[in-house]
């Protein structure tokens, strides 16, 4: 079965990123597929590569990046939500005249259409938020 996962909150502030990550891993270990993970609202903050969590605590961004690298999971960050919150890839940096970019490996920035596409293509959509 194909799953779509939506994450509405940023890392650490709310448990939703952790819950979504654990759920995503369980989807894969049960032998199902993840069609896409879509980051919306503050969820886009999961995609910055500039976090330095305490050494003895989990590194959420790295876990997302690992999920993308190990399993080819499509991690999509909403462009409008990202622009509001300062999550920037090289392309957005150039377009918007910023002096830096911070998108972590494994993530890509794209439009809300990707969320709708996931709703259409996946067989189950689960939302994690606050």
């Amino acid at each position, binding site marked *: *079965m194909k*799953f779509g996962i939506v994450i*509405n909150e940023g890392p650490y502030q709310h*448990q*939703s990123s952790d*819950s979504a990550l*654990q*759920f995503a*891993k*369980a*989807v894969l*270990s*049960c032998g*199902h597929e993840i069609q896409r993970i879509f980051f919306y609202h503050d969820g886009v903050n999961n995609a910055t590569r500039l976090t330095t969590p305490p050494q003895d605590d989990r590194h959420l961004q790295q876990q997302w990046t690992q999920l993308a690298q190990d399993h080819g999971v499509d991690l999509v960050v909403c462009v409008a939500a990202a622009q509001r919150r300062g999550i920037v890839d090289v392309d957005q940096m150039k377009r918007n005249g910023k002096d830096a970019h911070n998108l972590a490996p494994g993530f890509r920035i794209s439009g809300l259409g990707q969320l709708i596409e996931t709703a259409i293509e996946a067989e*189950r*959509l*689960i*939302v*994690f*938020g*606050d």
Partner: protein
Amino acid sequence: MRTLHTVNKSPFEKSSLASCIRVMQPGSTVLLIEDAVFAAQSETLIRPALDKGQVYCLEPDYMARGLGSSQPVAGIQLVDYEGFVALAVEHDRVQSWL
């Protein structure tokens, strides 16, 4: 055409569980996750959900909050994340009461 209703906030913090119970159709399923697991210890708050359908509770969240030394309200089943996935597969859609 059954719905899996997930609730993630404590019933003492937000009215999401109450809204879920009000709207859920008989025969559907509730899964308590994150802070909503506290509802699994309250007969008063969770009974209306048990009267309407099945109630599950995500065990890792239950254990994390120090509830492991007592049983949830009778009728509530603890599941792990793979159980969560199985519930999502068995139902036709998931409604997240945030």
